[in-house]
């Protein structure tokens, strides 16, 4: 497939190199000619020196035939504008961008764009690692509002029903691993020492889940 990448900084150049090495056609746009040096010698794609908001530059980069556009320039506003133009004016099927400033992350949501809020994501992650060290998520959904986490069952919960862990709208136990086997718990299933339980949990309720599981910080 053909990809257009706006911004040849660390993120843009790394993405460009990876997709190029996997055989995709890549055009990278950056207005700083020096940024080209971030691409590896063997890079087989195209580097276009130009302004990612200039329609002619976007067309030269092949946006009209692109399968994907990645907006990772150093300007949040540029990323939002070019991502929206790619989706709405050029009908690019896959559009992803980056917003660094957490105060501006809402633009992505308001416009229905897939924008990775890098600072917010990093802050959430670090906060979780320190505050909820035993609850490192297996997976996050949306912009991190909902998580899938796995945790060993503390001894004091042995013999209780799995369903007792559920809090409607906040915490839901969805899977129990025991002795190398995994089951989806039925209403009457009880917990045993050594079980590892998967929970779907709202990010705001991680503290509540942690107190269920008896976690303490720092440990």
């Amino acid at each position, binding site marked *: 497939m053909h990809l257009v990448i706006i911004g040849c900084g660390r993120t843009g150049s790394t993405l460009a190199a990876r997709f190029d090495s996997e055989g995709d056609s890549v055009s990278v746009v950056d207005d700083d000619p020096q940024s080209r040096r971030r691409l590896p010698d063997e890079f087989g794609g195209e580097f276009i020196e130009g302004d990612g908001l200039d329609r002619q530059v976007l067309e030269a980069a092949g946006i009209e035939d692109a399968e994907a556009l990645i907006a990772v320039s150093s300007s949040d506003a540029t990323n939002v504008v070019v991502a929206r133009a790619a989706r709405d004016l050029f009908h690019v099927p896959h559009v992803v961008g980056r917003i660094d400033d957490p105060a501006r992350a809402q633009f992505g949501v*308001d416009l229905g764009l897939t924008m990775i809020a890098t600072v917010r994501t990093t802050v959430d992650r670090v906060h979780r690692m320190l505050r909820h060290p035993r609850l490192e998520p297996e997976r996050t959904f949306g912009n991190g509002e909902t998580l899938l986490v796995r945790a060993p069952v503390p001894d004091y919960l042995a013999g209780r029903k799995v369903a007792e862990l559920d809090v409607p709208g906040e915490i839901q136990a969805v899977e129990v691993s025991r002795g190398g086997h995994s089951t989806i718990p039925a209403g009457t299933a009880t917990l045993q020492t050594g079980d590892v339980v998967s929970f779907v949990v709202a990010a705001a309720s991680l503290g509540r889940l942690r107190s269920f599981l008896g976690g303490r910080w720092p440990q």
Partner: protein
Amino acid sequence: MNIVVAGAGTVGTQVAVALVDAGNTVTLVDLDPGRAAQLAGRGLGVVVGDAAVAATLEEAGGLRADVLVACTGQDPENLVISLLARRRLEFPRVVARVKDERHRWLFDETWGVDAAISSAGSLVHLIEEATGSARTVRLADLSAVGLVLVEATVGATSAARGRLVTDLGLDRHDLAAAVIRHGRSIPTTAARQLRVGDRVLVITRPGGEDGVQRVFYPDDAGTPGASDAPS
């Protein structure tokens, strides 16, 4: 009018000062606290903050203001500020500065921009355009009876200049109520040929402002609504 100008660079400051001199209430928004200090005592309100964040525009008077002028030196910033002003703060009019002509294609109603202006023109021209709405300003909301009163200013580039009010070609639902010349209201029939500086009061329907604007400024490139409005 109550006007918020985002961006206190050279152009933004000039626009703001000229708008104050013309009798408007103006609040400048800029990220740089140093700029705010420099602008103290010039009759301007100043808010330090990111104009692309709703809370900042709100603090600048967003919910009471008539016009937002997005006037930073960066075009994508002007676009996201315009969108925020229109969608979240519901500014009745949004005017955005286009710094680089290669970006003009982006400045349209999809970003909430009513009029796109370039800083290349003379300051006076810029002000005329910056207040784009000042040419057709909604003066009173008579929407309860399905009407609004707007004021259109005859500028040097207006198609109305030198014409009779009866020959303007206003929509048949629109009514030119009076002409204001040298600060006095005169009957439309007594006004004879319209002159630069005249202001024409027009009663129209809500949403009819664009049509009035077209009568007065048919060639107004960069004013979306003239040709792009979905019908």
